[in-house]
């Protein structure tokens, strides 16, 4: 399926979205894409906000989660709490059985600590490939990404063409929000949230690859903490051009 939004369209839409609130961006996405819109939710704090905004605009909206098989118990708890709160279920995508069996045989159960290549291989089997499957046929997907989450996300637009997923649109309605705004929303609406957030985990992925951060550390410092900062993306949101630009600017 080819791109239906030109670079110019996307640039103009980003300028328009810069003046809009997250709920307006989500409402636009629902009006525009209907059943072609989906939310990939990790059930982290930001994704709880986007989930709430999306289901307010369209209670039947497509929402899916990637169950990597190594998620912390607290994540499963908040998924269940969300199922209760919204009275609905969510699509679940799990790793391909054969690929997972091969990975475990080759790397062993904790091979991802051994090298960056191993870690990326594990992310690929558990997250990247299932995401590609989940997004096939979608016209646009929502994320809870924010610019202030990390060094690698400082140039994050509201709307981008996701070339890695067949040129569909990727929408980041919370791009301009601060962490405080996210938590104010969660408290005001009394949304369920992942209990690990209260234990110093701002960003939560798989259990073995997530740790708490220290005061003053970057938000995503607890993800793959043994690797260099610029590599700390699982591959769901890597955009080569943006990364290159950030690195050029930084150097």
């Amino acid at each position, binding site marked *: 399926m080819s791109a*239906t939004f030109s670079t110019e369209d996307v640039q*103009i839409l980003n300028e328009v979205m810069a003046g809009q609130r997250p709920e307006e961006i989500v409402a636009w996405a629902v009006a525009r894409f*209907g*059943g072609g819109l989906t939310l990939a939710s990790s059930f982290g704090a930001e994704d709880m906000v986007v989930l709430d905004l999306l289901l307010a605009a369209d209670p039947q909206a497509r929402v899916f989660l990637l169950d990597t098989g190594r998620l912390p118990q607290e994540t499963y708890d908040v998924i269940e709490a969300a199922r209760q709160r919204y009275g609905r279920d969510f699509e679940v995508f799990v790793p391909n059985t054969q690929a997972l069996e091969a990975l475990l045989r080759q790397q062993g159960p904790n091979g991802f600590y051994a090298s960056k290549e191993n870690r990326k291989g594990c992310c690929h089997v558990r997250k990247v490939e299932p995401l590609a499957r989940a997004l096939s046929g979608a016209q646009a997907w929502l994320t809870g990404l924010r610019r202030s989450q990390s060094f690698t996300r400082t140039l994050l637009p509201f709307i981008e063409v996701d070339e890695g997923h067949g040129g569909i649109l990727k929408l980041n309605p919370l791009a301009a929000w601060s962490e405080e705004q996210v938590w104010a929303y969660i408290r005001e609406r009394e949304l369920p949230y992942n209990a690990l957030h209260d234990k110093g985990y701002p960003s939560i992925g798989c259990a073995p690859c997530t740790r708490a951060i220290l005061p003053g550390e970057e938000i995503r410092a607890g993800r793959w903490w043994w690797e260099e900062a610029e590599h700390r993306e699982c591959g769901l949101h890597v955009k080569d051009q943006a990364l290159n630009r950030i690195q050029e600017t930084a150097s």
Partner: protein
Amino acid sequence: MSETPESPIEIIKRGSHHLRGTLAEELASPEPGFTPDSQQLLKPHGLYQQKSRDKTDTAVKGPVLMLRGRIPGGRLSAAQYLAYDALADSYGDGSLRLTTRQSIELHGVLKGNVKEVLQGIQKALLTTQGACGDVVRNVTQAPNPWGRADIAQLEPLADRLSRHFLATSNAYTEIWLDGERVNPDEEREPIYGQLYLPRKFKICLTVTGENLVDLYTNDLGLAATFSAGILDGFFVFVGGGMGMTHNDATTFPRLADPLGWIPVAGLIPLAEAVVGVHRDFGHRAERRHARLKYVVQEKGLDWLRSELESRTSLRFEARELPPWNTCSVLGWLPREGGSWAYGLHTPSGRVASALKQTLRALVAEHDLSVQVSPDQDLILLDIPDQARADIEARLAQAGAKDPDPLERRALACVALPLCGLAITEAERALPDLLSPLRQALVKHGRLDQAPVFRVTGCANGCARPYSAELALVGQAVGKYALYAGGSSQGDRLAVEIRQRLSTTELPELFDRLIGLWAAQGLPSEPFGDFANRLGASALAASLQEASL
């Protein structure tokens, strides 16, 4: 200027070998659509790749093409209209869309059928070349349901301008019409050069006093004068354009400026000089600053006048411009020579289902030529007196209704679900937006003087909201900026009164606005003039007070 980088589209044009790119190869491939670069190159061929994004639309998945005709003045013979009608059924979505530039669009054409459609259009002695993209677009012209001899003199000139600014590249013929190949290295584009224009360029022709074409919204507007009934010259207006971006004050709608009068012999040299100024000075780095209006705004009228005079042997003569009017082209109108015209109001230019079938039958049986109006209506021409009753009865049976004074000149752009830039609804919501306005007009006894009302789904202004008396411009889903104060003659800009109005606020707001006009307007003062006289801040303040 040469220091600034080119926008990506400039780079695509530069490497395209006169608009060829890889269109021919991609057309032959089994892929359902064209690549992103090629989608840009489709435009100067009159094609847009789109995808129906309506959630309820499951009939067509994947990319489809929109085709837009190049139809100077919107004039079609019966055979030409019937060709479009048949192509829409065979290869499109079964409907025709009449545009505000007097063209016809076919929607929902599959890539595998596009050659058949373009060859069908060619057989009808028409083209889609240059209907979109960075070239001179379809030349519009005052509609002429009355068969007026003065307006009729515009026809050959509109045709000549349209031909003159057609790209000379053989690409269209080669790719779509199986024409013989020409070596692009041996081709020349004497007017456009290899980069073509920085952005679209719109030309319109009218006669002085008649502004249904919305002359001031064009890059180049020409208003003809007559001496002893013979067209002898033009008032020249340069630098209009509607597009802007919310939150970006460096973009703005702008009305064309009058430069003066030139004799008729200067028409082609003058038009070429204005297009040349756009080609040479237009900003190629940023698409949204690339229209001619930004050059005119930055460099000023004195510079423009002398630049145009030095490119031609012309001198602009100062003359007094007669006042404008906008005569309705709807309903039954007698034509010079004893026949009749019927102006059929087609809401948002849609011609589909029963109405489309009836029009096809009427045009075929009575051999009617037609003209598309700049308000997206269809004018049936040369109707013999004895056919009137039959035509009226059959149109009514097909569901054609007499528009009320508010509907007559209401415009809305396509917006959701088809337009890539739409933020919110326009065409589909038009009836729901008209209804609270109509209620307010009826309540205050002003329906007969209903303002020119227009709605767009984003700030780009395709339905010309910024020259309307009252307009809604989409800012977010279900939220609109309110503009007011243009004139019914289209010679004044509307200004923003309120931001981010939600549709639920409209009934009360329209009630106050129209109530204010009814209470404080001068006798027979049109709404736009009243709003302009009060001014944006006073009007906004009055509305605020009224709400306390």
